[in-house]
């Protein structure tokens, strides 16, 4: 984390889910459902729509970048100095759906944003761990 060379970071999480894409799509795009698994929000499935995800520990600023119903959804994810893009991809399989989430665009070389992110994300996760611990 201390090297200064520009570098795009990326996190990918993939999972086989035993439900069809349209069901997952609803969970990814309907406000009350998003709140149940991710955070409180004012999401709308419209390109350029700006929304927030709100946890007890702070907010994430987002903007919808791309939507292709039941196939792909992408939005910016800016929190405490960190600018990134989250992209969901749904691929139907024989038994359900292959769900892929990629978060990318984090570039340590961007100086100020990176310093902010280092500080911000530490806080973010401290709070997150607390929330997760108390949720059980």
């Amino acid at each position: 984390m201390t090297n200064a060379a520009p570098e795009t970071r990326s996190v990918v999480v993939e999972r086989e889910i035993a439900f069809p894409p349209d069901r997952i799509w609803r969970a990814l795009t309907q406000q009350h459902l998003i709140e149940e698994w991710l955070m409180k929000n004012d999401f709308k499935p419209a390109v350029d729509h700006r929304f927030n995800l709100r946890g007890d520990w702070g907010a994430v600023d987002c903007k919808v970048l791309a939507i292709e119903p039941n196939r792909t959804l992408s939005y910016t994810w800016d929190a405490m100095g960190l600018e990134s893009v989250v992209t969901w991809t749904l691929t139907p399989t024989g038994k359900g759906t292959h769900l892929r989430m990629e978060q990318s665009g984090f570039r340590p070389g961007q100086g100020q944003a990176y310093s902010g992110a280092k500080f911000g994300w530490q806080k973010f996760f401290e709070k997150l761990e607390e929330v997760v611990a108390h949720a059980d």
Partner: protein
Amino acid sequence: MPDTRDALFRSLADPTRRAIFERLCRDGEQTVGALTARSGVSQPAVSKHLGVLKQAGLVRDRHEGRQTHYSAQLGALAPLVDWTSQMAGFWQRKFDDLEDLLKRMDQ
């Protein structure tokens, strides 16, 4: 910067010192007296631990009248944080929550 990391690890390796740091993270800014009351060690010992934490950049002190208030500096932990693995853990948990929701959802 291995030196910074070494100082961090060293300063957090002591359980009493770590407990003091964790209390500052959890409860916010506090005086030496307040920290001593719950630490189980003497005030000079607490002050010494705070000095080590301060050198590592983990705490900051603020003088107000005769009292010194200490607060945690979470930014100093940054070298220990690997953003990628933290985020992966975050999303793995969110995928679990999403799967739970999918099972509960109406058709």
